[in-house]
Every structure is written in structure tokens, then in C-alpha cells.
């Protein structure tokens, strides 16, 4: 009999990195199905290319850097799928591939791999594509009509669509972000499996609505248009790049909402979600620093020792 000698604890929660990433993939399925239904075959192609190139890119960079291959943790697949769902269905496949490779190699791999990237890889890649090939990223397709001419998105033409259309997704936009019921289904799954907590999605969506309304936009319209809801559920909640504490997450969500509203009102782009989240990703370390929990037995974080009361 050979007994193991590993230290306590001797049991472990069933949650593993891989299981959490798989939960995210499962939660993305409704969005993917809705995207294929609305935009057809090109959506499938983009998702496949994006996921495969993200996984391949991760394998390559880990090989080059001499790291242990970690593609089994599924984080690259999540990045690839999220990026694809963030693209216009009319995006050429090679643009999606370039984005995926940029995400896993430059944003993630070169900064140390999973856990060490300070930007959300999918969002940073989207920003990269937006700068390099703006035309492809802002050419939209009308839903449910494979070859229809591009229409203006609700952000460019706010009066053109009803709330019902905005909610159901019968509007031009990115593959995964238009159909709100599918996103909400994903959110319920993520909450039910305790993959994420409710704070960031709820606060970010609400703050976006409030700040946009304060700047003259419609409260509900601004929450339902563009990628707000999709980003609030799947991207702002990225563990690596969001603050740890609930207090910090509220600050972070409020910051994202404010920046979205500012970009939409004053910025060059009609959207603003991508840059808003990226900017708050950068602010995360400092938010974490100022929202640390008080340690038991100390009066506050300045390490004064607690007075004995009673």
C-alpha cells in the first residue's frame, strides 16, 4: 500500500478552469445558433475559422515559448468563439483568422498566457481589427436575408427599429450580439452554474442605460443596441481582466457604462463597448488596489490593529 502524502485540503470543489471555460462555451451556444439563424452560413464559417485559429495559435505560441501546452483548458476556444460572435457576418474569414491569432499570440501569449493578459484577448483583437480593417468590421448584413444589402445598425440610425426588433435581434449587427433572448439564456446558464456572479452584467447594462439616458439617449434602447448586453455577460465578466471584489466590480461596471455613453455621444465610433471595456481592463489593477477587503483583526487596510471592543 503506497499512501499519498499531499497536504490538506483533501477534497476539492468540482469547479476547474476547464469546466468553467466549457460552461462559457455552452452558454454561448444560444447566441451562436441565433447568429446562424439570422445570418446564415457565413456565421458558421466565421465561428469555425476563428475558434480553430485561436486554438492553433495558442498551441503554436506555447510551443515557441517552451511552455506546457494548455489548449485543453479551452480558454483559446472561448476567445475564438467570442471574437467571431463580435464580428459582422460579412467579415472575410481571413480577417477573423488574423483577429484570433492576434488575440491568443500577442494579447495573451506574449504577456505570459492565461491569467497574465491585462486586456481581454477577444476585445483587444476586435479593437485591432477595427483599426486595421475598419471597412470589414462596419459593413453590416440585414438579418434573415443572405444577400441583402447592408443596412445601418440601430446605433447609426436610432429611429429605424422598434424595441421589439432590438430585443429579438431582427436588426443588422454582429453575429452574436443582436439576439437578446439568446444572450439572456446564456446569462441564466452562467449564473446557474455559478460560473459568474450577477453583479457585472447587471450593473454594466444598467449604468450604460443610465449614462446614455443622461446624455440624451433612450434608456432601454441604449441597453439593447450594439454589443452592450453581449459584452456585459461574456466579456466584461472575463475573470482575468475584471476586478476581484464586488465593490471593485461595481466601480468597473460604472466606468464601462460611462465610457460607452461618452463614446456614443461624442466619439468617432457609433459603438463604444470595445474601447470602454478595454480602458476599464487597464484600470482593473488600480481598482483592485483600492477595493481590497478589510482583513480580520485589523481596523482598516492601513493595517492598524483592531481595538478590542466589548
Amino acid at each position, binding site marked *: *500500500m503506497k*499512501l499519498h502524502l499531499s497536504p*490538506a485540503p*483533501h477534497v*476539492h470543489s468540482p469547479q476547474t478552469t476547464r469546466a468553467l471555460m466549457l460552461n462559457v462555451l455552452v452558454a454561448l451556444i444560444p447566441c451562436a445558433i441565433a447568429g446562424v439563424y439570422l445570418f446564415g452560413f457565413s456565421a458558421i464559417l466565421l465561428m469555425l475559422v476563428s475558434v480553430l485559429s485561436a486554438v492553433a495559435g495558442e498551441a503554436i505560441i506555447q510551443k515557441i515559448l517552451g511552455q506546457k501546452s494548455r489548449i485543453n483548458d479551452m480558454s483559446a476556444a472561448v476567445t475564438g468563439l467570442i471574437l467571431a460572435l463580435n464580428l459582422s457576418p460579412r467579415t472575410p474569414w481571413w480577417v477573423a483568422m488574423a483577429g484570433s491569432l492576434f488575440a491568443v499570440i500577442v494579447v495573451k501569449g506574449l504577456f505570459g498566457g492565461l*491569467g497574465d493578459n491585462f486586456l481581454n484577448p477577444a476585445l483587444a483583437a476586435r479593437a485591432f481589427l477595427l483599426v486595421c480593417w475598419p471597412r470589414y468590421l462596419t459593413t453590416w448584413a440585414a438579418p434573415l436575408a443572405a444577400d441583402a444589402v447592408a443596412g445601418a445598425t440601430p446605433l447609426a440610425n436610432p429611429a429605424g427599429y422598434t424595441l421589439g426588433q432590438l430585443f429579438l435581434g431582427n436588426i443588422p449587427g454582429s453575429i452574436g450580439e443582436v439576439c437578446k433572448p439568446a444572450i439572456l439564456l446564456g446569462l441564466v446558464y452562467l449564473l446557474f452554474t455559478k460560473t459568474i456572479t450577477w453583479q457585472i452584467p447587471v450593473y454594466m447594462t444598467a449604468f450604460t442605460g443610465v449614462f446614455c439616458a443622461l446624455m440624451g439617449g433612450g434608456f432601454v434602447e441604449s441597453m439593447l443596441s450594439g454589443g452592450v448586453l453581449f459584452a456585459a455577460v461574456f466579456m466584461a465578466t472575463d475573470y482575468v481582466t475584471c476586478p476581484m471584489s464586488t465593490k471593485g466590480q461595481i466601480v468597473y461596471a460604472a466606468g464601462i457604462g460611462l465610457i460607452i455613453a461618452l463614446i456614443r455621444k461624442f466619439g468617432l465610433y457609433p459603438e463604444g463597448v470595445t474601447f470602454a471595456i478595454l480602458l476599464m481592463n487597464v484600470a482593473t489593477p488600480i481598482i483592485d488596489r483600492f477595493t481590497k477587503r478589510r*482583513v480580520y*483583526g485589523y481596523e482598516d487596510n492601513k493595517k492598524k490593529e483592531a481595538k478590542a471592543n466589548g
Partner: protein
Amino acid sequence: MSSNNTFRGGVHPLHGAHEGKSPTRGQAVIDYTAETVTIMMGMHLGAPSTPTVQVGDHVKLGQQIADPVGFLGLPVHASVSGEVIAVGPVQSVMNPAAMAVTIKNDFKDEWVDTLEPLGDVETCDPTKIVPAIKAAGVCGQGGASFPTHVKFAVKEGQYCDTIIVNGAECETHLTCDHRLMLEQSKRIVDGLRAAMRALDVKKGVIAIEDNKPDAIEAMRKAAEGRDGVEIMPLMTKYPQGGEKQLIQVVTGREVPTKKLPLDVHVIVLNVSTAKSIADAVIEGKPLITRITTVTGHVVRPCNFRVRVGTMVDELIAECGGYSIPEDQVGKVVMGGAMTGFPCPNTTHIPIAKANGGVVVYSEEESKDYDEDPCIRCGRCVEACPIGLNPYKLKYFCDAGDMKRAGEWCVMDCVVCGSCSYICPAHRRLTSSFKAMKDKIAAEARKGKG
């Protein structure tokens, strides 16, 4: 009878499986008397005691066989009557050469009459209570084995206004305290009353997790009509029975960093410790038995009342042996899953005063995971009952950076295991903090000496 009394953070290990307690919670305690016992000299925190018997000596039950050493020292007593057959080092769970006295049982159970019974806890002389506790070799039986009489050493300017009896039993698998509360409820209350009278404390609280409604009921009944004793149900959550958490929940006070419970006027005693205090005061009996839960992959999981020094392998055999093929046994752990110590390559190890359980794990349950990179998910931060940042602290500890680990409060870590339990990347957080704490403590001792 569910309760909302709790602290912030914590985890729910084995929650779907009733914390692993279901096989033994209904098992009444059965006596097990070993043919030989191997009584270790270092069963308490503090310097090991010095044996006062030699091979060939005949000892009676309860006879003192070792003298205390130093401020944290405790005497040790024979847990069987019979002949001393060995005095020397044996393998213990932590120490490959722990000094011990081995006694062959003559099964006569002749009591020695050196300790004076004080009688009824409500009427006995309160000044004699703490000396009686020390003479009986009572140490904390919840895990840390702190000598109990030292907890009662109130210094100039200090006072105690609340004594908490810890019946939370938040560790997984163990039901020894649960059974004790059901079967010896009155003795526990007696022990608490003795402790209260020794220090003239007016308030005693017996705190029990709400997954033991029958124990809460039994203790309520036993406490009826007793001065200042109340029962407090607690939410079932690990580490509810941690000393700092318990004080926070019961009194609303926090033990300041580097201080002891007495600095916030509280003393915490495990239920088994309270019972030992009662035995010492009422009957003059030293601490020579304890209840141990033997569970996991054994044929018949049981709660035993064993003589201190009984071997683990004997108890496993008494449970009908392993319920899985022997080559499938992965780990035998002394204690619960969150803080227990694994037996080193043998189960021929004696039970000490603070061993509440033996749990057998299969090979499948014991497999080691590789550490994956931290994904900053924040689960460890949420789970830490102390409010530390385990994910960050680990970088400093792994790098051996004692200064920054100290700044990030590693010494306040209670080593409960919650962060390691919850980490999806299987990072061994707790053990790296434990190693750093030991290193800093060793460094501090070096500085002094």
C-alpha cells in the same frame, strides 16, 4: 432550525454528501479497548513531556507516566493498566521519531487514585478547578491541542466575559463531537459551568451548526435551568468552527491580529474539551480516552471511544477493514478533509488526544493535480474567512519574499484550506501559506534565541 448566524466567506465542502458525515452521524459511540497502547509524549502544543516510567514498570489506569515540560507542558497519563513494554521513539503522523510509552493492557482497568475529585461543578471550590484541569492533562481537542489550563491564565488587566463551547464541527466526515453532544450533553454543560465558575464568567454559549438539529435539541435540554448557559445555532458553512470565526459570530468581536481570544475577553473550548474538564473536576479522571470517527472507505464506518494511544490500523480492522482493495487505498487522513494530516506510508500510528477522526480515501480521490495558472477568478478572495488575497499572497510565498508576504498578512491566515478547496486551477494556496508561516515563525525564534 436553519440559522443565519455566520461570518463572511467560507466554502461548502462535500455539501451534496452531507459533508461526508452521513455514514457515521447515526452511529452510537462504541468502546474499543486495545491490547497495547502507544502513548505519545508530545500530544499537546508545547514541549513533549518527560517519561517517568521504565520498561517493566506496572502502571494503573490514569497513573501519571510523564511530567510536563515548560510553560505549555502537560502531564501524560496511562490509558490502560498493565506493564510498560517500551519507552522510545515511534512513528507519529507528523514526526517519524515521537517519544512514546507503550503499555501492554492487563484488562484489569484498576484506577489509580492520585487525582482528587472536586464533586459537583456548581458547588466545588472554584480556585481548585484550573489546577485540576492541568493535573488531568487536558488539552484542546478540536485540533490545535493547546493546553487548556493555559487558556485560563488570565493576566493582569485581562478579563473574560464569555466562554464559547465549540460544537460547530464544521470539518467534513467527523461526527465525534456530534455524538458526544447527543450522548454526553450534561457532561458538556457541566464542563462549561466548571470553566465559567473557575473564572467567574457569567455567560456561556454552546454554538452548534444547524446541520445537527438533534444535537441542538439535546444541548438545549441539558442546559435548561443552568446559570448563564445558552445554545446558539450557526449556519452550516466551513470554517464556522474556526476559533476566530466563532468569536466573530457569537460575540461580534474580532480577535486583533497577533492577539489571543482572551484579549477580546473570550475563551473557546471544544465540546470534547468541555467534557474532559467535567471528567477532571467531577471524578478526578485524567484525559485518557477520546471519541474518534473512522469513516471513508471502510466496511463499517464507526464512532469509537478509544484509549489514547490506540493504533489507527487496529481501528480500521475493527471497522471490518477497507471496503476497497488495499491497492486502491490512496490516503488515510487523520482528521477531516479540510485540515487533516495524511498518514505517512503506514497506518501503524497512535491516536493522540486531539485526533477526532480517521478517513480513508481511494486512489481516485487522492490523485494529485498539477497547478494551473491563476485565472484571477476571485473565488479564493471570496472564500477567505479572514479577508486575505490568497491569489496574490501565493506569489510572494512561492518567491520566498517574507517581507511582502508579511505585509499581505500571511501570519493572519488560519490555514483553513478554503482557498485551495475552491481554486479552479488547483493551486496549492494553503500549503504555501503554511510553509511561509512556519518559515517566518522559525525566523522569529532564531531572532530571539
